[in-house]
């Protein structure tokens, strides 16, 4: 078990290293374009070369990569071209904002998804199952930007209940969080529900459920003690992996509602070719994703006695 954890974390570090190489190759291998991105397109070749020279860009790529990675590890992400401040100064507060948005959305989506998934899976093919399955397909078919538009025109313009932007200009306002969270939950609950349903439905057909029923256990106990314990192992992983999807959804939602989060930051950075900011955002996003995947794996092993004790 310990070995497994060590190995899993080793893989995680290795993954991060490869990701960093990938990011580096994609964004920094062409020094000319780096200079253009940093100094702007209206600079002369001499200016650019001077800048490149001064910042060590004519060193061999490997050396540059190692230096770049070293700076990354100690938390020095360089300076944002657009905001004219160190990247970390803008990045961390934005990440915290996204953490609030994503955390609430994930919590609600999991709660709804798991509950409805279990209910649907208890009796496969029944009316409840049909209802949950169809609505899950329905809501996951609506892209985030579309549901944002639907909700906006209904709650903001038609009913006038909620604010249409979530910039939080006058301090934190819970009402401004409602629509972004709704959009994320609408898109994400369905996937969790369908996975939970599938897992639950599969468990319900197993022989050990038959054993439990024929032992004379009350139906509630069969579901709670026997079915759910096994059925919820798989969705656990799904929920953890959902964080990866959430990070994508967050970008759209933050752009759509003007929420000052990490996703919007990455988006702005890419529009402005703010290269160091893109790199930092990408690395942080992948780090979060890889971290949750690792936790998902470790958690799965822990939840599953068949793996835990072998």
């Amino acid at each position, binding site marked *: 078990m310990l070995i497994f954890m060590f190995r899993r974390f080793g893989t995680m570090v290795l993954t991060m290293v490869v990701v960093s190489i990938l990011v580096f190759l994609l964004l920094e291998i062409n020094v000319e374009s780096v200079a253009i991105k940093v100094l702007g397109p209206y600079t002369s070749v001499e200016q650019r070369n001077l800048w490149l020279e001064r910042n060590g860009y004519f060193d061999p790529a490997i050396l540059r990569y190692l230096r770049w990675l070293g700076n990354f590890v100690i938390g020095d992400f360089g300076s944002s071209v657009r905001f004219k401040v160190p990247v970390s100064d803008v990045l961390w507060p934005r990440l915290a904002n996204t953490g609030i948005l994503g955390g609430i959305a994930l919590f609600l989506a999991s709660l709804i998804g798991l509950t409805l998934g279990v209910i649907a899976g208890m009796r496969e093919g029944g009316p409840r199952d049909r209802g949950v399955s169809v609505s899950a397909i329905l809501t996951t078919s609506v892209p985030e930007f579309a549901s944002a538009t639907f909700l906006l025109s209904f709650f903001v313009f038609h009913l006038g209940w909620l604010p249409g932007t979530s910039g939080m200009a006058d301090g934190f306002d819970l009402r401004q969080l409602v629509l972004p969270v709704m959009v994320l939950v609408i898109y994400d609950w369905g996937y969790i529900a369908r996975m939970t349903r599938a897992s639950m439905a599969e468990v319900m057909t197993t*022989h050990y459920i038959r054993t439990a029923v024929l*032992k*004379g256990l009350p139906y509630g106990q069969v579901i709670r003690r026997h079915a759910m314990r096994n059925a919820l192992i798989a969705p656990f992983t799904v929920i953890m992996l959902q964080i990866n999807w959430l990070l994508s959804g967050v970008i759209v939602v933050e752009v759509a509602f003007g929420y000052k989060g990490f996703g919007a930051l990455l988006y702005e950075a890419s529009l402005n070719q703010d290269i160091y900011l893109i790199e930092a955002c990408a690395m942080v996003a992948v780090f979060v994703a890889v971290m949750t995947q690792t936790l998902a794996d470790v958690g799965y092993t822990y939840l599953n006695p068949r793996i835990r004790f072998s």
Partner: protein
Amino acid sequence: MGSQDHSYDGPILECRDLCISYFTRAGEIPAVIDFNMTLNQGGSIGLVGESGCGKSTVAMAIMRYLGGNGAIVRGQVLYKGRDMASLSEEELRQLRGNEIAMVYQEPMAALNPSMTLGRQLMEVPLCHEKISEAEARKRAMQILADVNLPDPERVMAAYPHQISGGQQQRVVIAMALLSNPSLLLLDEPTTALDVTVEAGIIELIGQIAKKFSTSMVYISHNLGLILETCDRVNVMYSGVVVESGTVTEVFDQMRHPYTKGLFGCIPLPGADKSARPLVPIRGQLPLPHQRPPGCYFAPRCDFFKQGLCDLEDLHMTSVPNQPGHDVRCRRWQEIDWSTYKPVGVGVGEVQAGEVVLSLNKMKKYYEITDNSIAAMIRGKRVRYVKANESISLEARASETVAIVGESGCGKSTFAKVLMGLETATDGEVMFNGKDISQEQVQKRSADQVGSMQMIFQNPFDTLNPSHSVGSQLARVIRKFGVETDGDKIEQRVMELLDLVKLPRDFARRRPRQLSGGQKQRVGIARAFAGNPSTVVADEPVSALDVSVQAAVTGLLMDIQKTYRTTLIFISHDLSLVRYLADRVVVMYLGRIVEQGTTDEVFAPPYHPYTEALLSAVPIADTSVERTRIILEGNLPSVTNPPSGCVFNTRCQRKIGAICETEVPPIFEPSEGHRIACHLSREEMLAMKPVISLAATPESPAAE
């Protein structure tokens, strides 16, 4: 304790004209028709039949657990005189697990993988009786001891996957007995287990019947097990009971042609194969929606009479002077069994030719990396699994060599090395005068590959569902360069289908449209497509129904005889091996423990393992007597085999420390008959036969 109603002394269970159907998209499919059964207190009834005969459906109907699409359409199930259909959900719940308990076919699947066994056991008394956790725990520990599980404490804390299959089944039985039920339903409780483990479970079931005076319904496809566990038997065929009576009546004086046929299909290890040949039943089981009118067995029956057997309204009739012995046949009184001499399969001596295949000290080790910390500290991370250790044997042309052993004995590895899917670690494998032990199949010539082919175990897996039967056979023919021209290939495909007695238009069919037996025939055709000199058959009939098994076995032997093929027959079924093998090799944990001609191996002196294996085989013949040897303990892991003689941990004849320290020498009572055992010559020669016929074998049916 279980709420046994002492005021009631009628039958425990009665089924009256029970009809059960499943409702699918295709419509109503009758699974059980007109089923009657009366089980008295303390009695035991066996339900026997092949797959799809409805025997498990009956058990589920008794529990009133037929799933969403099954229903009792007519008739009643009466438990202690009460109609099960009239019970409320709550009353039903109180009955299940408390008064009626069940033991299932696959113990691993029947136990919840993420709950400790102790929890799962304690649940039963906790939900049926008002007792404390501590009391429930005590009861669970007690019952685990009752089913002869060593170390109940450890079992209680374990998860299902941490104990062996045999132990799992004991836990399931313990769970069923916890509330001291009046009725125990056993649905193929040993089918998923190895023979020697099965013997232990059967013995336990026998003890339970005595100790707890529980009434039992025992469901099995194996007549031998019914003989050992039950006093009455219902023989089922395609949803109906065709014959019922006491075990002795049905086993010794069977009246229905199907019962007769079924017994003819079962190989008996004690019998002389020429005196009692294997007689296949032709054709195959009808699908539920394709049952013929009248008698469902009619199309396969040798006594079919038009205008009589195909009339509807066929009912059970009683055999005179044998109250309770009923037969569902219109002609049973007319049939004269003494003149009925069906043609048996595969008897007749063959002259073995020159040596085709010879293995000399072949070894196959697999490397496994041990990642535990302890192993890392000791620096011994790589261990070897000795899947095959020093295998030496010979096979001659037109000879059948059987490799016998239980799961994990290395049979499959052996086949893989022969076929070139794995290379041997050491030793040689001489095939047609060439060492192929190091040649992967891709490196072998088309001719070499074609001359050694394989027949597989699982009929549902042996053919590629995406391609037609014809194209799969054609591919083999082309691959081995037997024919290259399109028309000739097609011609050859037809010949192969003729060879395995399948209609030619099967070439166009998809595997999905074939029955298990038919698929297995195609598998045989495929193996013989390249005119092989040697065919390796890996349990080719073990997944088939008994009545189909005999026919496929017969076919295989006929073809083998015609082409003088060497057949390496891998099997766990000693009875079948007795019929078709010329020589037998018994394996245990990757080692050969005994080999010799069939007659030598099946008669003393035995290797103790062979002896135990023989004694464990259930035999469906009342005239056979056998010594019972129940092996103790579990099959050791191949990754960590016992030292010395690998069988020493379970051996019933273990003589002492020498068995644990030294590899046993080879004892050769006659030339070619080799036994690897420490027993002295005298002890060996003093062994008694395990299986013997009773003094006066009577066969009234033949009179």
